């Protein structure tokens, strides 16, 4: 948590120094890192965080929306089940980030409610709301498709995506039930072992 805060304030400082500093940091990123997309998000506590703040640790990310009663709880459950399969050390090394595809309704309060309902460990989980214009850009970078339906719900790809510490996509796991598939869990452990 402390570390996340540090990164957050570092991010703020970099923002204050304006774009060249960020561009300098991005230049050192691998070309295929999803953190090549520059985006500012709001978390469940209303704090502004940079998408690149996730850089530095392996992460499992997914896209969802709070007002979703079938697939989205499965995504969260699947992420929690994944955490249960990890040793305490592995658990502490993995961030989980859920990006909203419904920024109009997924206010920090709505995201906070998801965290409470699912009893998420907010030292590890980050529920993030992108700006309106960035949802499509982030979805494109992650290979997530979504479409608003007339009744206010969304069609969307339900997938857990494993990123290495530099934001390269290592593996994807379609969410089909409460448990992530075994091969994906193995990849997560491998990636955590490789991270310094």
């Amino acid at each position, binding site marked *: 948590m402390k570390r996340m805060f540090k990164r957050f304030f570092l991010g703020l400082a970099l923002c204050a120094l304006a774009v060249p500093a960020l*561009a300098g940091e991005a230049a050192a990123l691998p*070309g295929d890192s999803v953190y090549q997309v520059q985006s500012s998000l709001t978390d469940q506590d209303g704090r502004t965080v940079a998408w690149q703040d996730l850089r530095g640790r392996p992460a499992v990310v997914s896209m969802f929306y709070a007002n979703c009663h079938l697939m989205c709880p499965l995504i969260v459950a699947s992420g929690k089940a994944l955490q249960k399969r990890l040793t305490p050390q592995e658990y502490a090394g993995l961030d989980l980030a859920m990006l909203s595809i419904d920024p109009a309704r997924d206010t920090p309060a709505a995201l906070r409610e998801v965290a409470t309902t699912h009893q998420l460990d907010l030292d590890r989980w980050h529920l993030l709301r992108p700006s309106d214009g960035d949802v*499509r850009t982030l979805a494109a*970078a992650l290979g997530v498709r979504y*479409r608003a339906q007339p009744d206010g719900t969304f069609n969307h*790809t*339900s997938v857990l995506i494993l990123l290495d510490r530099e934001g390269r996509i290592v593996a994807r796991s379609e969410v089909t039930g409460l448990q992530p598939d075994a091969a994906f869990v193995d990849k997560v452990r491998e990636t955590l072992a490789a991270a310094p």
Partner: protein
Amino acid sequence: MLAASLVWFALLAAPSPATSTEFVAIPGGEFRSTIRYAEEDAPRHVDGFAMSRTPVTVAEFEAFVDTQPQWRRDRVPSLLADRGYLANWQDADRSGIDGDAPVTHVSWFAADAYCKSVGARLPDWSEWEYVAAASPTQRDARGDATWRARLFDDGTPRGIDARANAVPNAYGVSGLHGTTWEWVGDFSTLMGDADKRGGEDGDRLQFCGSGGLSFNNRDDYAVLKRVALLSAMEPRSTLGNLGFRCARSTP
């Protein structure tokens, strides 16, 4: 009301800082799309919005690359553009080709970033199709078999709007049926597979995995061809005859 319209008009007419992109106000309306998503059957309502009068040009894109050099072809990360990106330019910062021509060899990410840089966005497919249904004389010319037949030439030098002096359509928009195809913001939803439905119904969840898209009018081959082309693209893909234009929601 009048004052508000005037302000909106002034906003539309005002050149953006980086470019001289002109936007045309498009009134909203009911529209029966040629394509149909699984969840929809009724005609779709397209809200009023603004669309750029012409496709984004090579000169406009040069100005963008100049102010945002991370989009130069020698600096763009592989996540955001493939190796064909701006491959037809003489140098990384200078095209050496006709500045008035629509820019091509651009990825979806680059088009998305360009539109954001002028305070705009890519048009959605339904917005694009709605405006592209217009001939010079009719807002929905799809009943005109002769006009429609000519759309087979979209994306080629024989396209209806390919010549520089081609007449704008009934909305005052040019180039929708020219030598270049155009990206749309939600192009990735034109393909149904890999979708999972977020609703309550378990059966539909299964159904949804097999694809959410079908066609209302199988005779509209030109649109089918366009959808097939766009659905085959990755957001980092580029093509020598694929460009884009921008749109703005009505405030």
